[in-house]
């Protein structure tokens, strides 16, 4: 199956800004059943793209726009081939728990076991687990499958209720959220069980008629959990499926903040407005900017130097 992906991000500022430095996690991976056929990024204003591979093996692009500008856009286009993969088993042997608790396994997957950032367990999470009767069952695979389903059932899909970097408590108390929230909650629970779990940022070829809840014009996020004898298995609690041929992986991290699709800073006293559009199509469909660009809330903050920074400067510890 071939997909073509177009991902457009546009910042508009209400006053001229300068020295924007941007960082992108937008290149689909080329590993396993996923093959990257082509990829390109263009920016406006034009800039030289630099790239490196981060410590999780993700491709990171970055660029800067030193001069004055009032709009900045990034357009990434990729073509990806997805091969069918064998479906993971319904369950694994219950000795898998022992393998997971082995210090060597835990050491190897330290980063994906530790409570971190947005995936930190909270009292509210504990209440939620108790209330819904969610817990470990016979083996890790069955436990995760049930968890995936339980999260799908417990939460309504509702854009605009949470931010990309909201703590899990926001979604837990509202019982609503989007893919990032569900992924963070699932990760927190899985890690609590001793199952290494990681955040996956990517794209979904959405099939609304197939029961998907995800908005088709957004980036997607789901979870990969390490199951002994199976390796990393993708779970998508937003859509109550296991990640498969329609899930195009871009980056993995401990949580959203490790791998935001686009992040940046700029100088200048301005507010920014962000618009994002994503289209994943199985064929090279005609693409027009206007019919799929939509405005979301501002998410980029200026780095400014105000007198109150005195406190910041003082805040640094003296050794």
């Amino acid at each position, binding site marked *: 199956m071939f997909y073509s992906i177009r991902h457009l991000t546009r910042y508009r500022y209400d006053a001229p800004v*300068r*020295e924007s430095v941007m960082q992108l996690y937008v290149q689909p991976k080329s590993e396993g059943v996923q093959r990257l056929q082509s990829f390109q990024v263009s920016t406006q204003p034009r800039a030289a793209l630099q790239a490196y591979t981060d410590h999780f093996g993700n491709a990171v692009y970055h660029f800067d726009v*030193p*001069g*004055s500008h009032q709009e900045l856009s990034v357009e990434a286009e990729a073509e990806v081939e997805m091969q069918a993969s064998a479906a993971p088993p319904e369950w694994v042997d219950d000795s898998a728990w022992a393998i997971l608790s082995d210090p060597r396994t835990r050491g190897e997957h330290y980063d994906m076991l530790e409570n971190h950032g947005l995936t930190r367990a909270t009292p509210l999470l504990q209440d939620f687990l108790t209330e819904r009767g969610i817990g470990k069952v016979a083996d890790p695979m069955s436990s995760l499958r049930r968890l995936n389903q339980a999260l799908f059932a417990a939460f309504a899909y509702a854009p605009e209720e949470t931010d990309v970097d909201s703590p899990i408590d926001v979604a837990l108390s509202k019982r609503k959220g989007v893919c990032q929230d569900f992924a963070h909650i699932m990760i927190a629970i899985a890690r609590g069980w001793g199952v290494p779990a990681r955040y996956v940022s990517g794209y979904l070829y959405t099939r609304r008629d197939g029961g998907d809840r995800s908005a088709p014009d957004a980036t997607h996020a789901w979870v990969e959990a390490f199951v002994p004898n199976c390796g990393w298995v993708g779970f998508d609690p937003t859509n109550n499926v296991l990640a498969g041929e329609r899930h195009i992986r871009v980056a993995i991290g401990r949580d959203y903040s490790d791998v935001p699709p686009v992040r940046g800073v700029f100088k200048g006293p301005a507010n920014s407005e962000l618009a994002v559009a994503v289209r994943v199509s199985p064929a090279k469909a005609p693409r027009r900017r206007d019919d799929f660009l939509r405005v979301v809330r501002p998410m980029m903050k200026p780095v400014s130097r105000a007198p109150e920074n005195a406190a910041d400067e003082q805040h640094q510890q003296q050794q």
Partner: protein
Amino acid sequence: MLSRVADALYWMARYLERAEHSARVLAVKLEAMLDQTPDDAAEAWIRVTGALAWPMSEDVKGSPIDIAQQLTLDKAHASSIMTSVRLARDNARQVRELISTEMWGQINRQYLRLNASDTSLIWAAQPVPFLRRVADDLLLFAGITDSTMRHGEGWHFIQLGRYIERAQLIARLLDLHFGALPPDVPQHVRAPRYFEWITLLKQATAFEAYCKVYTADIGPSQIAEFLIFDPEFPHSIRFAVDRIQEELGFLGPGAAAGRRVQAERLAGRLKASLDYGQVDELMAGDIDGFLRSVQASCKQIHQSVFDAFIGYSVDELLPS
């Protein structure tokens, strides 16, 4: 030289010039009061607040001595000597590694003395000697600067700041004495009389130098000629503008010549108006307009220096 550092040196010099000017204007005025009737004195203080506290002259009130104290010691007033010295020192701290130890020692000592717990007592006992001492200390700083710091680019930024500030301060002070009063000060003030002309000369450290040129014959027209057009007197506008024009050539060595064009054009135009100006024409015509255009030109020169050397946009300078 780092742009931020040049900016700090420039502002350090401006604040010091401002403090020195304030100290002298206040000291001379307080002394002159002894020879004037109380009413005259109170009215004439409008010229002092108009020259020093502007544009916050409304905030300074009370008896002459109250006004003088506020303009000297009030930490909250943006134009007080206290504030100017503090800001000068803050800027000096920014460039501590660049200025000489002697310079830092002098400005720091002065700052500490002004902030000592007994300052207001010393002030109250003898305000005029207090102000004289402040002015002397600031002159000393200028001397230390000239003889201990390399006369490199940083020094030129200091000179530029000093003379841009000075040209504006003198122009403003003259504006309060010649022609109509500036619109932003109370208008019920009599035209200056003999005493006040002498006071004006002294406030510009010009009395003795003036007498050498014009003898003790005190007249507004000669005073205007001296303080505006004299090419050799350091507190004349023309002298200051000559220095400004010279200093511009030393900024940003190696920078593309195009970047200083705007500042040089402005300074050249201002200089020409002083080189070829005539005091009779001014006195007969629009001396207010002239003095205000001097102040406006200085502001424009300041802005164009900032745009060219300090706050410039980097994109055309970077390799692509």
